[in-house]
C-alpha cells in the first residue's frame, strides 16, 4: 500500500514537473526572443538562449514614453484600486458575516445575484458618462469596486473566526470599528492577501474598461500600450481592414520588441507573487470551505 502511494507521488511530481516545465519553457523562449533580433522569430524554432544577443529591443521599449506613462497609470489604478476595493469589500463582507445582521440572507442574495446578471456594456457605459466619470481614474476603479465573488469569499472567512474573540474584546471595551480594524483584519491576513493579489492582478491586466472609458491618451494604462505594440500589423488587425492604403502603410512591431514589451509589462506583477504566495493557498482554502 505504501509503495503504491509512493509510485503515485512520483507520477504526480513527474506530471506536475513536466507541466511546470511546459510553462517555463514558453516563458524562457519569449525571454530569449526579447534579447534577439526580430528575424530569429521569423526563422522559427525554440530558443532557450538568445541568438545574436542584443539589448536593442529593450532599448526601444524603454524609450517609449507611452510605456512609462502606462506604468504610472497602471500603478496608480492598481494601488488605489486594490486598497479601496479591499477596504470596501472587507467592510461589506464583515457586516454580512454577522448572524445578527437584519435580513442577512436577503442582502447576500441581492449581492450574489449580480454575479449572474449584469446591466451589460452599454447601460454601464451610459451610467459612467452620466456620472461624469469619463477620462478619470474613477472610471477604472469605481465600476468594479465591490466584486460579489470576493465579497462572498471574504464573508465566509470572517464567519470562520470565533465569535468569542470579538465578545471578549467587547468586554474589554472595544467598539465595532476597533474590533474590525485591530482584531478581525489582522487575523484575516491570508484572505486579505489572497483577495488583494486577485484585485491587483486584475487591475494590472485590465484593458477593456480603459478602451471604453478613457479617450485621453495621458490616462492610458500599460496593457493598452502593450496591446497596441503587439497587434499592430498582425493578421488579427488586417482582417478588419479592407483599405489598401492603410494596410500598406501599416507596420508591425518587430517580434523582439513585442517580446521585450511583454516582459516589461509582466515582470513587476510577477514579482509580487512570491511575497504573497505563503498566504495564498491558506486564504482560498479557508474562504471556500466554510460557509
Amino acid at each position, binding site marked *: 500500500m505504501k509503495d503504491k502511494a509512493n509510485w503515485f507521488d512520483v507520477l504526480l511530481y513527474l506530471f506536475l514537473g513536466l507541466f511546470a516545465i511546459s510553462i517555463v519553457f514558453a516563458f524562457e523562449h519569449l525571454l530569449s526572443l526579447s534579447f534577439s533580433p526580430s528575424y530569429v522569430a*521569423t526563422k*522559427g524554432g525554440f530558443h532557450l538562449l538568445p541568438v545574436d544577443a542584443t539589448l536593442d529591443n529593450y532599448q526601444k521599449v524603454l524609450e517609449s514614453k507611452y510605456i512609462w506613462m502606462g506604468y504610472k497609470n497602471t500603478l496608480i489604478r492598481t494601488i488605489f484600486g486594490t486598497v479601496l476595493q479591499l477596504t470596501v469589500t472587507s467592510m461589506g463582507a464583515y457586516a454580512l458575516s454577522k448572524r445578527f445582521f437584519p435580513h442577512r440572507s436577503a442582502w447576500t442574495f441581492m449581492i450574489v445575484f449580480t454575479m449572474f446578471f449584469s446591466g451589460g456594456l452599454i447601460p454601464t457605459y451610459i451610467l459612467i*458618462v452620466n456620472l461624469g466619470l469619463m477620462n478619470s481614474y474613477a472610471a477604472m476603479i469605481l465600476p468594479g469596486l465591490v466584486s460579489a465573488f470576493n465579497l462572498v469569499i471574504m464573508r465566509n472567512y470572517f464567519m470562520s473566526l470565533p465569535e468569542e474573540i470579538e465578545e471578549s474584546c467587547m468586554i474589554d471595551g472595544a467598539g465595532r470599528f476597533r474590533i474590525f480594524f485591530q482584531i478581525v483584519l489582522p487575523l484575516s491576513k491570508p484572505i486579505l492577501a489572497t483577495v488583494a493579489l486577485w484585485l491587483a492582478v486584475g487591475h494590472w491586466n485590465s484593458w477593456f474598461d480603459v478602451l471604453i472609458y478613457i479617450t485621453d491618451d495621458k490616462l492610458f494604462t500599460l496593457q493598452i500600450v502593450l496591446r497596441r505594440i503587439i497587434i499592430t500589423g498582425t493578421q488579427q488587425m488586417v*482582417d478588419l481592414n479592407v483599405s489598401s*492604403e*492603410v494596410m500598406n502603410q501599416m507596420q508591425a512591431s518587430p517580434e523582439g520588441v513585442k517580446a521585450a514589451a511583454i516582459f516589461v509589462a509582466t515582470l513587476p506583477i510577477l514579482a509580487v507573487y512570491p511575497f504573497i504566495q505563503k498566504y495564498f493557498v491558506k486564504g482560498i482554502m479557508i474562504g471556500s470551505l466554510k460557509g
Partner: protein
Amino acid sequence: MKKLIALLLCAVLLIPAAASLADDSVPVKWSGTISVASYMFAPFDPDKDIVVKEAEKILKEKYGYDVTFDIQYIEYQQYQEILNTRIAGKTAPDVFISMSSSNMDNLYEQGAIAEFDVDFFAQNAPNLYAFMNNGGYHGRLANFVDMFWDYSTVANGKMITVAGMTEAGAMPYKNLVYRGDWLDKLGVDPEALPMTVEDFMALMYRFADEDPNGNGVKDTYGFSTTVIEALFGAYGSYTAISAGFSTNPSWGPHWFVGDDGKVICSDILPGNKDVLAILQKAYADGVLDPEFITGENTGGYWAISQGFINGLYGVSALASIGHYRYPEVMGDDGGRCAQEYYAVNGADSTFYYGPWPAGPNGDYGWRLGYAVGIGENMLYNASLNDDPEKLAAIFAILDIFFTDDELALLTACGVEGVTFEYTDAGSVVMLKTNEELNECGVAVLRGLYGGGGNYNEMIQELGFYNNPDIKNRLEWAAKPQYDSYLLTVVPVALPSQSTYASELLAFRDETWISIIKGDLPVDYYDEYVQGWLDLGGQVLTDEANAWYAGE
C-alpha cells in the same frame, strides 16, 4: 502750413481705414468644434502637434472656417465595439469610420448616422462633387461614377457617405514570389517560370522531390495556402480555404457570371472540382504543405509567410508585390517581407516574381478590387442632421482639403524635412513611423480629407503615381499573366449574407479540406454543391442575381 497739418491729420485718420482695407482676412463663415475619429495608429499628442493647429489657422485665415478639431483616438481593432457604446451614450464623434458596407447599412438602419441630399453635398463641396461625377483623376475612373453614387446613397436617394474612390483599389497587387535559391538549385530559369497549371505543378513536384534546399532530407513542399487560391484562379474562380488571408469572411463571397448569364458564387463553380482533384493528389504526394489549413502566416506582420521564408515551400502569394521589391530595381531596402527574407536567408539571397499559372481555359490570376470602396470611408453622426450648418462646414472643409494643395500636403504628410521628404522620382517618403506621425498630427484628419484615400490630386500624384513601388506594380502587371482580372460582379454585402455566410464558409472549408486530405472522394463535390445551396446558398444566389439584374 495749416494745409499740411490738415493733410497729415487726414492721413493719420486714414491709417486705421487703410489698415482695415489691407487686412485680407475672410469673414468667419462658421465657427465651432468638429470631432473626428479616423484610422489612427497612435493617439494624437497636442504637445507635439505640428499640423492640426496650423491647419486650423489656414482654414480660418484663408477660408473663414474658425474650426477647432477634436481628434479622438479609437483603437482600430475594437473600433466598432467602442463606437457602438459611444453612439449609445451619445458621445460618438461627429465624423467616424465605416468598417464595411454591411456595418454602414446597420448604422444607417439604427438611425446612428446622418443622411443628406445630394444637392446639399454638391452645394457645399462643389469641386469634389464635380470630381466624382467626372470620373476622378483625368476621367480615368469614369467607369466607376455609377458605382460611387450607388455606394454613397441609400434607397431614398439620399447620401450617407462619400465613398472612397482611388485608382489603386482596382490595380493588381500581387504576384507569385518564388525562392531564388531553389530555382537555381533545380536549374530553373527565373525568366521562364511556369505559365500553365501543368508546368506549375511539375515544378511543385520538383520542389518537393528533388531536395531544393540540398540537405539530403525530403523536408520540402511545393506550396501552401495562398497558392491554392492561385490554382482556383487558373480555373476561373476566386475562392480558397479560409485560413488564407484573402478569404476574410468580411469580404464576402465572390460572384461571377456563369455561362447561362446568371450570377453564380465562386464557391460552387464547376472548375473548383478540378482544382480539388489536383490538390488531393498534391496532398497525398507530399507536395502540398500539410499545414495549409492553418495558413501561411504564423504570427507577426500579416504578409510574412514563415514557411516560404524558412524554405518549407518554394512559392507564395501571401505578400503584396510591394512587400517584396527587387532591391536592384527599386534601390531601396526591398520592402517589409524582403527584409525578413534577407535576414533569414542571407543578404545575397534572391526571390523572383512569377506569372499566374493558367488553366485549361486560359484563366489565371487573383482577385481584383474596385476603385470605389466602402471601408474606412467616413460616416457622419446622426446628430449633424439637427445641425446642418455644421454638416455643411464639414463638407466645405472636405472640399477645401480637396482643392488646397498646401493644406492637403500639410495634413497628409506634415512638414517637409520633419515628417517627410521628396524623392528624386517626385514622390514622398515619410521620415517617422506611423505612430510618431499620428502623434504630431499627420494623417489624423484623414476623415476630413477623404476616408479610405486622399482625394487631393497632388497627394495622389505624390503618394501614388510617382511612387516607384506603384510603377513597379504596373510594370509587372503589364507582362503576360502577371496581371489579374478576377472581379466579383456583386461587390456589396447581400441582405442575408450575415445570416448564412459563416455557416456556408464553414461547410465549404470542412468539405474541401476533407476532399484534399482524401477523406472524401473528389466526386463528393457535386453533393457539396447541392448542400451549399440548401444551407442558404440558394437564398444568397437569388439575392445576388436580383442585385445584379437591378444594376
